[in-house]
């Protein structure tokens, strides 16, 4: 009986300790999805294509540019933003962090483009979410 209690005590304690230990983030580079669509709007819109290319500049450099198209099954207010990453996977800052609100009507397909703010951007993540503005 006492052994039983002690066992339970140890188990509880180990749970506690485990809870306190910090979760170690993965240190290596994670392959990110190019595209994230929030579940709230998956029912109403679909991303039909997502293209990227590098636009060459007069000095010989180039900038990453993406284009994507969205089709809606019903009138939808949504927002989108692109986050850019460099070779090491670090975020490349743009003008701001805000999302762009867009409204897509039923059966409408809209095309959007975005250009990276710096030449060092090599990858990106496009995020589509519900527009929650009141």
């Amino acid at each position, binding site marked *: 009986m006492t052994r039983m209690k002690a066992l339970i005590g140890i188990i509880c304690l180990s749970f506690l300790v485990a809870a306190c230990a910090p979760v170690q983030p993965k240190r290596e580079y994670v392959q990110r999805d190019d595209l994230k669509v929030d579940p709230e709007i998956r029912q109403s819109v679909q991303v039909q294509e997502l293209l990227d290319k590098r636009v060459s500049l007069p*000095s010989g450099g180039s900038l990453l540019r993406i284009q994507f198209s969205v089709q809606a099954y019903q009138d939808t207010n949504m927002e989108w*933003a692109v986050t850019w990453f460099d070779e090491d996977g670090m975020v490349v800052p743009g*003008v*701001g962090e*805000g*999302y762009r609100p867009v409204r897509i009507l039923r059966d409408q397909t809209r095309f959007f483009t975005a*250009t990276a703010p*710096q*030449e060092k951007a090599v990858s990106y993540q496009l995020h589509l979410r519900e527009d929650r503005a*009141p």
Partner: protein
Amino acid sequence: MMLNGTRSLMVAAVASLMLSACATHTRYVDPAADDGPVAMTLDYRDFERAADNAVQDLLSSGAVDNPSGERYIMAVSRITNDTMQRIDTDQLTKKIRVALLRSGKVVTTTAVGVDGAEDQMNQQARELRNNDEFDQSGVQQKGTLKAPDLSLSGKIIQRNHKVEDEQQVEYYFQLSLTDLKSGLAIWENETPIIKRGPNDTVAW
């Protein structure tokens, strides 16, 4: 009729008491997750959108990419505030300047401006020349300030209309980049921001 009047008065009084009881509290807003209401006036989101639009267009146009690989030097000329609000046009230009500087394509001079230098220290630091109190090896020499290649100018316009029972406010962020060598506008951009809301009162 009379009693209705007094009664509605009391109802209104009670309602106003209740309203004042649940006052809002102050909190921080995260620009990346701001789902707050939109005002008819210009707010930070509008400036950010306009600046973001302008910078993307400017960079991808190649207008600020120097074939020699060096950075262009840009001066900020006048951005006219043609709205009905007392805004500071630096809210727009600063965002553009920061993004352009980060891109490595353009650097802005603070020694030249429409109303004189943006940073007075450009001149004041040079007044130390021949002052015995200062180690002259660190004092700026003559002929070191760089003249601008490009000039950014523009206008923020506001036009209001009544659309049925609502008020429509149209803002246009217009920007031009002039090549000072030729006087030609080598890049131009307009970002419209349109809002529709109640027409009860003025849009400022």
